[in-house]
């Protein structure tokens, strides 16, 4: 009887301890949420007042490519499916967004949604081989999709002018008289549209985080760990793999539509097959397990070329070499990317400095 009482009390205190631990973690989430909200407010409200127009355009591109990097992170970081066709999907989203903008008078948020859904369907179809293939083979298939997209876009004079979804201009190519892809009426100017892009990016990140921290995220983690174990746990592998491709492609499609409205007149030359490879490399360097890693990838992808080319006058193709070295470094020493490695290295550096200062101070004291 007494033993029973003890075990019941023990169980209660154990449960209370667990509840306390969970509460502490919840509090941590609240603090982190407040910091993120503050940072978002700074990026949306303060940044446009601090930088010039060309920097703002670059930051808008960083934001768009951060969405694409996050989509790569979902596929590879969460499910373990490597896709080397994410920039190709971005161009598909860009093309669909452009054509829908010319062909319809849909409000811009609806345009974003419809573009995302159509790109989501296309991306899911591209992801179908992942049910049978993985690793190098899936990488090759998606890379070939990227190559095929580049060819199709060049052949069709992407995005071509003219009215309607399949309309062509009389000259067979975009002319300077072609009106740019429309922007939302509330954000026509560059500054306002930059803010719009950052907010949509935040919404896309939130969508990704909701998935990752919920049932799909746990199922993806199980699939990544071991497909047989996931199957034994009751995970419908087909459904969750396709779900990941649909979500990643939806996000990339939305990014494509934003890009269409950002540049106004998209050109096929903007999207090269190698861009998909560069995006994969920068995503890995930034960190594929976190949204901050995706932001870092966006910075590497768009901000560094801008600084190299426009600010320093150095050919931005040199970046490919830097990315190659960076990728090697990350793969060997920090699988979580720079976003995990940098704070760790900084903490080590601070510890080292602190120890050196203390040793110096100790040496002086003993000398005196």
């Amino acid at each position, binding site marked *: 009887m007494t033993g029973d009482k003890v075990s019941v009390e023990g169980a209660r205190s154990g*449960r209370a*301890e667990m509840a306390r631990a969970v509460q502490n973690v919840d509090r941590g989430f609240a603090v982190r949420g407040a910091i993120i909200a503050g940072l978002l407010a700074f990026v949306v409200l303060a940044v446009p007042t601090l930088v010039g127009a060309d920097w703002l355009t670059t930051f808008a591109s960083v934001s768009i490519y951060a969405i694409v990097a996050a989509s790569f992170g979902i596929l590879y970081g969460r499910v373990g499916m490597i896709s080397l066709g994410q920039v190709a999907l971005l161009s598909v989203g860009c093309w669909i967004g452009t054509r829908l903008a010319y062909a319809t008078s849909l409000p811009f948020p609806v345009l974003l949604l419809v573009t995302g859904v159509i790109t989501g369907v296309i991306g899911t179809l591209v992801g179908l081989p992942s049910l049978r293939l993985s690793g190098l083979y899936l990488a090759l298939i998606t890379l070939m999709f990227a190559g095929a997209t580049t060819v199709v876009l060049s052949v069709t004079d992407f995005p071509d002018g003219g009215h309607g979804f399949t309309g062509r201009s009389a000259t067979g190519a975009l002319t300077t008289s072609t009106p740019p892809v429309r922007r939302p009426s509330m954000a026509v100017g560059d500054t306002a549209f930059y803010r719009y892009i950052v907010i949509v990016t935040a919404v896309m990140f939130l969508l990704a985080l909701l998935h990752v921290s919920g049932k799909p995220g746990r199922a993806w983690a199980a699939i990544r*760990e071991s497909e*047989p174990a996931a*199957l034994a746990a*009751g*995970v419908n592998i087909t459904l969750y793999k396709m779900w990941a491709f649909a979500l990643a492609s939806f996000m990339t499609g939305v990014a494509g539509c934003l890009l269409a409205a950002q540049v106004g007149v998209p050109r096929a030359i903007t999207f090269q097959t190698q861009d998909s490879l560069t995006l994969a490399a920068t995503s890995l360097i930034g960190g594929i397990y976190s949204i901050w890693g995706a932001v870092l990838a966006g910075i590497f992808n768009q901000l560094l070329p801008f600084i190299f080319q426009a600010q320093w006058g150095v050919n931005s193709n040199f970046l490919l070499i830097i990315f190659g070295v960076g990728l090697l470094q990350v793969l060997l020493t920090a699988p979580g990317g720079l976003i995990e490695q940098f704070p760790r290295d900084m903490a080590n550096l601070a510890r080292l400095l602190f120890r050196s200062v203390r040793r110096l101070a100790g040496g002086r004291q003993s000398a005196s």
Partner: protein
Amino acid sequence: MIEVRDLTVRFAGVTPIDDVSIVFPGGTCGLIGPNGAGKTTFFNVLSGFVKPAAGSITAFGEDILRMADFRRARWGLRRTFQTEMAIEKLSVYDNVAMIHEHSGAKRATRRADVLSAIEFVGLEAGPKARVGELGARERRLVEVARAVVGSPRVVLLDEPAAGLPDEETGRLGEVIHRIPGQFGALVILVDHDMSLVSACCETTAVLDFGKLIASGPTAEVLRNEHVMRAYLGTEEDL
């Protein structure tokens, strides 16, 4: 109760399970045998990874072989693997919750069910601890917590104590032994550690080269001449 009748599995020219009929009456049942005896293949048949060439398996009156593989977890089948499969990137809570949300159990009871499964295995680490940061014993306990959450009916444990020192194996054995009483599930334990099998299992079946060579109360089975020969070999073999 699980009733296996005339089960045969063939892979090309190999027959890892050859016309086996066993009854697992309930409680904790041991399934032992030398390497290559067909134990894991039997678990793979139950999980749906391997289709048998012949035979039937009835668990609690239901033909388990007719169910789609991923639906068996919803029915109440749980298993662990020889190689520990707790998900490193997730927390202890998420590892266990993942099983609960695919088990068909009610969402409203998820938090309570998951916490009580973690508590049942006696894990010292908190529910929010990341599994990748836990030691081998704790990761094994997370696996057991995953196996008992969400009203399990059959729990298959494939060498759960592999790589653990004796003392920790003993503590794991206590947890395994309490599963049928606490959750009403039938446990089948595959392990090479005879002290663990003796401590946990009321009945034991022995496979050798895909054939059933003995079954019955554990103490009797472990004294069986054929079993000792299968494990130790005959004088001629030596």
